[in-house]
């Protein structure tokens, strides 16, 4: 688990396509503060901070007009990156809390300006509120900014799709009656 966390924190601390490393770490801190886990000491635009708080506390209350408003003010790339960072930090915090490991220290940001965006092939408005490169699937929801989609997919692959997890269940779930439940 540690290599995954370390890779993820490093991925958050570096400048992204829309935010600096400091801003990305500030987004992570703001997500934690919204869940009462830390105090936020960073500078983010008000609309970005509001979006982070809503995603962290009550994600289902995000609606299309809010997304349009925030994207109109901070831009699509920054919004997608913000969603990724806030969601990832909550996933990791949940994991470490459930395992009794406490909350990990946020990474030191890497300096530098946001990196130049590359053109994303096949990116266009489809069925979701943000443009994507394909169908409505979580694995493509952040595809407007491939580096953060990749970061989220790595976590998903390790925590949910990892075939070794399936093997673990097969070993531990006991009787044949119980096994069907998981596959």
């Amino acid at each position: 688990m540690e290599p995954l966390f370390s890779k993820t924190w490093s991925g958050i601390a570096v400048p992204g396509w829309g935010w600096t490393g400091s801003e990305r770490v500030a987004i992570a801190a703001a997500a934690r503060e919204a869940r009462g886990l830390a105090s936020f000491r960073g500078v983010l635009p008000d609309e970005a901070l509001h979006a982070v708080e809503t995603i962290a506390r009550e994600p289902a209350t995000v609606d299309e007009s809010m997304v349009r408003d925030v994207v109109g003010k901070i831009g699509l790339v920054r919004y997608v990156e913000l969603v990724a960072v806030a969601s990832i930090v909550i996933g990791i915090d949940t994991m470490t809390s459930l395992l009794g490991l406490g909350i990990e220290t946020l990474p030191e940001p890497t300096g530098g300006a946001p990196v130049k965006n590359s053109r994303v092939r096949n990116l266009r408005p489809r069925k979701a509120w943000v443009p994507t490169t394909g169908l409505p699937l979580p694995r493509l929801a952040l595809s407007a900014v491939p580096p953060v989609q990749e970061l989220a997919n790595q976590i998903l692959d390790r925590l949910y799709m990892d075939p070794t997890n399936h093997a673990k269940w097969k070993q531990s779930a006991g009787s044949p009656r119980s096994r069907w439940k998981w596959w």
Partner: protein
Amino acid sequence: MEVVVVTVSHGNKCFYCTLGHLVALQMTANRKGFMVEPIAIVDPETDSGIPGGRELIALAQSAVSISPDPAPVARVAAVLGEEAAVTAAEVASAFMMINRIVEATGQPALTKQSERMQPALERLGAMDFPHSGLTTTLDKPGTLKRVASRLKA
């Protein structure tokens, strides 16, 4: 595993993930000829029909709470073993992330799935989730399954 996903997604009021994984849970049950009772997610008096179901649901509910607690993980470990408990915690954490990504980007669920599962969704109170009306149809049947397989590969 799917009961953990459905419980976390239900706790986060993520319609897309609640629906998709409820379908997965019931398909597995149908395929294997067992009964599963998803209402156990919201009704602690009901037996889910899943070994360790009560403990798994408690773990998932703890994940959604503001202070996730290791105690339910230990209870799953006592019933299903330590590795299963860690896996359940991992899956719950993954969906704390995925639910947020889905909800904040407005991923629509499939209209046909939603219609087919409506009775179960109503019993779970999921038709009252803010995005229960956010559904779509796909142009070509089976497209989602094919793309999902390709992405997984």
